[in-house]
């Protein structure tokens, strides 16, 4: 590939169109990726990134358009054929077997090409060392951190000859430091001639890493640019269009009157692959937002379960509201005491998919006078749902629409609105803007700030460190079920919180 002047592009997509019933996922999309190029594919949720990716990887057959590989037209029928061409893909959600070793997992993914296990293990070790991704082939997956699991997925692609590596939102599960390490690996790969398609919505990262970017909006290419020459704002504009507010800075506040106090909370996880909580202590003050950062699977679920009341804790005093201990109270009793809760799963916990928005308003709003002597006040409930929809600009056909018919962002606005309209004194929100488009995320942030300014205590647990820095007044991190120091946001840096997310804080001192 030395005579670069006549080398055709590694991959060319021409007028790719994919129509699903009721939606055009990809509308005549063109894309060019050169050898050794790191190309970003940007766009909001639902812009068509995933579909396009699946077309390239042979998971989805386009209705129209053609795919050229090294200048030759090809039809990629399935992932096996894609791999044969030299296309590797790292999905956002890993598909690894917890109880098998790294080598065994990779052997399973490769199928017949795996060869015998000892020599595969040797190749894994070579590849991981070459690209600066330390990985022990003999370890079982459940002992690995999320970052290490991602390495397994990447190494799986690299043990075979690779010409194009596709990464879907790879940094969403990493600490800022891990992101840097990943970028070193990717740059090295690109120098060797491998093309990389990097899918993300984190604009700073794209600007730092990628040579070129293609931006999708509503299934169409809305722009192409060299990210290094653009500002994050200008790229965001191409993603969302002109009429959506992008983001704002919110003034930080410091308060002193605690509402929720957690002290010495210990809990053994119900899940054999879960994370136990160790001596968790923090407090959330009325009128402030406390942000807790952390990579998924570090005890967030267990902490949130204990706080919501779904799992009651043995030491009742470990969770404390101003009027007393609540560790033994049910979710309903905690709600009666002023708590509201926005869970991570919108469909299936936050809302019942198969029920109308009206019924979903009743789901947690039943304590606010919607039930009269055991009977549902249908009129009031409908009004309540209507108010949520109007006030939080939920796009829907009305109060009778089923929760499952709403987009993720709209449903999240509904759920957050439902909780906020009950005037809680404490709001606990898990990953409030996960998978939500920029417009909805901004609306959600505004609603949270408004509630804060009305004097409510707010706890936000999120994997998105940028979001936490934007809205939190104080910030900390959780790692291996332990909580880091908590500092006022202006007094810390993304780097420091990143180190906390990796477990680098004093509390972890040898506790045998």
């Amino acid at each position, binding site marked *: 590939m030395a005579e670069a002047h006549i080398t055709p592009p590694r991959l060319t997509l021409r007028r790719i*169109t994919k129509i699903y*019933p*009721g939606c055009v996922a990809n509308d005549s999309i063109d894309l060019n990726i050169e050898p050794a190029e790191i190309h970003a594919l940007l766009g909001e949720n639902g812009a068509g990134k995933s579909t396009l990716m699946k077309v390239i990887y042979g998971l989805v057959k*386009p*209705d*129209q*358009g*053609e795919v050229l590989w090294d200048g*030759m*037209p*090809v*039809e990629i029928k399935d992932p096996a054929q894609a791999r044969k061409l030299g296309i590797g893909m790292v999905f956002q959600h890993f598909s690894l077997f917890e109880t098998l070793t790294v080598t065994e997992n990779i052997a399973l993914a490769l199928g017949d090409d795996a060869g015998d296990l000892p020599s595969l293990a040797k190749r894994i070790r070579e590849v991981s060392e070459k690209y600066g991704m330390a990985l022990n082939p003999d370890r079982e997956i459940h002992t690995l951190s999320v970052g290490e699991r991602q390495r397994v997925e990447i190494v799986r692609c690299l043990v075979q000859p690779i010409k194009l590596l596709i990464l879907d939102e790879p940094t969403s599960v990493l600490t800022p430091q891990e992101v840097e390490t990943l970028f070193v690996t990717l740059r090295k790969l690109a120098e060797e001639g491998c093309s990389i398609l990097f899918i993300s919505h984190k604009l700073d990262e794209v600007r730092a890493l990628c040579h070129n970017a293609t931006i999708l909006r509503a299934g169409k290419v809305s722009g192409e640019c060299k990210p290094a020459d653009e500002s994050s704002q200008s790229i965001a504009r191409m993603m969302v269009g002109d009429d959506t507010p992008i983001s704002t800075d919110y003034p930080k506040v410091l308060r002193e009157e605690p509402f929720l106090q957690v002290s010495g909370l210990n809990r053994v996880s119900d899940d054999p692959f879960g994370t136990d909580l160790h001596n968790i202590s923090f407090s959330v003050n009325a009128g402030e937002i406390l942000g807790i950062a952390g990579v998924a699977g570090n005890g967030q679920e267990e902490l949130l379960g204990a706080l*919501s*009341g*779904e799992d009651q804790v043995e030491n009742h005093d470990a969770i404390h509201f101003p009027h007393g201990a609540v560790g033994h109270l*049910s*979710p*309903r*009793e*905690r*709600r009666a005491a002023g708590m509201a*809760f926005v*869970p991570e*799963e919108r469909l*299936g*916990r*936050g*809302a*019942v*998919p*198969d*029920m109308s928005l009206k*019924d979903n308003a*009743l*789901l*947690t709003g*039943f304590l606010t006078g919607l*039930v009269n002597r*055991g*009977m*549902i006040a*249908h009129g009031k409930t409908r009004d309540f749902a209507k108010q949520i929809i109007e006030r939080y600009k939920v796009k829907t056909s009305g109060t009778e629409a*089923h929760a*499952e*018919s709403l987009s993720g962002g709209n449903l999240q606005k509904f759920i957050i609105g439902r909780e906020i309209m009950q005037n809680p004194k404490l709001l606990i929100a898990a990953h409030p803007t996960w998978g939500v488009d920029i417009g909805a995320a901004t609306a959600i942030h505004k609603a949270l700030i408004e509630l804060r300014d009305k004097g409510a205590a707010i706890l936000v647990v999120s994997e998105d460190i940028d979001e936490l820095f934007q809205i939190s007044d104080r910030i900390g991190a959780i790692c291996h079920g332990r909580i880091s120091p908590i500092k006022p946001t202006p007094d810390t840096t993304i780097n420091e919180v990143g180190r906390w997310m990796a477990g680098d804080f004093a509390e972890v001192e040898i506790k045998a």
Partner: protein
Amino acid sequence: MIKLEPRGQHSKLMAWLSPVFAGVLTLISGAILFALLGQDPLEALHTLLIMPVSDIYGLAELCVKAAPILLCAIGLSVVFKAKVWNIGAEGQLLMGGLIGSACALALIDAEGFWVLPAVLLAGMVGGALWAGLAAWLKTSFNANEILTTIMLNYIALNLLIWAVHGPLKDPDGFNFPESAMFSDSALIPTLIDGTRIHFGMLFALLAVVVVWVLLSRSFLGFQIKVLGLDASAARLAGFREKRLVWIALLISGALAGLAGVGEVAGPLGQLVPSISPGYGYAAIIVAFLGRLHPVGILLATLLMALIYMGGEMAQINLGLPVALTGLFQGMLLFYLLACDVLINFRIRIPALSTPATDKLAANQEAAN
């Protein structure tokens, strides 16, 4: 080749059309079956479905058969909404009959307006207790209610047979396995003279209304529905799962028990070994055929009662075995389950492909 394609959103229209399709397919299969047996299909279907209800007596008898099925099915709609699979309506019905009979026989010399309510209440308690056993096993030991309720059906049947051969046997009954006839004050009065239709049908209709209100208007019913649709949402909202399981099972058990005591204190007037020809099982089919909706269940009950009567009629007029009833019930359930696929999937015949894909295919061929 025919392909099933997910609809993305489930079809409400199909949810109500599916029972209709199932009914039509059952009729067609039934007709084929009759033809194979050497009967004239139309005449046989006439005997099965029209003849039983062509006079007042027949209509009254239809109500007699419908009452216990309706009571069981409407109760089952409550538990099934909570996704608690009570297969034990039959056993709960038998226990209702057994305990109700024991009460009626204990009060055989008593007179007064309170005797019948006491007997009915005893029957409801009997059914509720039997369902309560399953609730206890489920909430305390996480025992699967499908298995426990089925097994409890057999225990209830054997208890009843033991009682009717032993402690409850009529001392003056020449050793027949039957109880003494209940006293008049323990019998449910008939509605129309000269027929067997009794107040039990009114209880059943009342139960339909109460369950309708429970499920559509009350917060308790709302919680039961949420539990069934999405248990983790119910937990997060703070609904008490175990309590809801208990309540739903007790309601369904009590209604099945009422159906049982309605049989012994109604058309039978005494305890006999066979008080139910599988009403409790038929009610499961009825509940699903009626889409767990009160009106749907009412219609499905009438159909099921008709099949029971038609089976008897076919036995008398056409000399066909009474197994015909079970056969038609089975076909109905089978076709319903098959048609329910259409709620979430549509049928596609891909032979009619779009020009776009054809063009793509042509391009690829040219490239190769």
